[in-house]
């Protein structure tokens, strides 16, 4: 798997687990999972870009 696919897979699985654990209703779980998943991706990409200058 590519690094991005690894990160996406990790974010998806963890988001689902945390959503089921921390919310009681189905709709709340779906909302939480979506928010958590996209937060994982956005923050990871943002940190990646912040580190970009140090890679050269």
């Amino acid at each position, binding site marked *: 798997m590519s690094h991005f696919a690894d990160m996406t897979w990790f974010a998806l699985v*963890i988001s689902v687990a945390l959503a089921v654990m921390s919310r009681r209703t189905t709709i709340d779980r779906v909302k939480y999972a979506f928010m958590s998943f996209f937060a994982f991706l956005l923050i990871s990409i943002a940190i990646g870009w912040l580190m970009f200058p140090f890679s050269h």
Partner: protein
Amino acid sequence: MNMAGTPKIASLTEPEAQKRTPGVAAGFAIAGWLVPGLGHVLAGRPGRGVIYFLTVAALAITGFLQRGFVFSHHFVDAFSLLGFLADAGTGIFYFAAKIFELGGPDIARAAGDYGTRFIATAGVLNVLIALDAYSTAIGEKD
């Protein structure tokens, strides 16, 4: 468990989970550590138990297939002890690691290094799930 303290199979599918004593709840948590999600199934939350099993399995098997490093119980320093504790958190998947990792670990590649993190995350998540099973069984959570 029913009033007499014997297993009550019918309770596995009941929508309302009954409260358990702390001792029984601890037993469910240990069962949930050994088999991810089993604690919730025993506590009367089979749907959650299945999802938890699938999430821990997905993380652990991804880590094994990427040839992540599985820490042995023969730890030599604090880091390897932490690694062992995290990996052992996966329960049966820790003992099944050799089945999935026929080629052994390969952390020279980035994928192998990621695999190590996947396995550790699966273990830590499963410990969290086991604690959640305890809270569910004693009635702190619905």
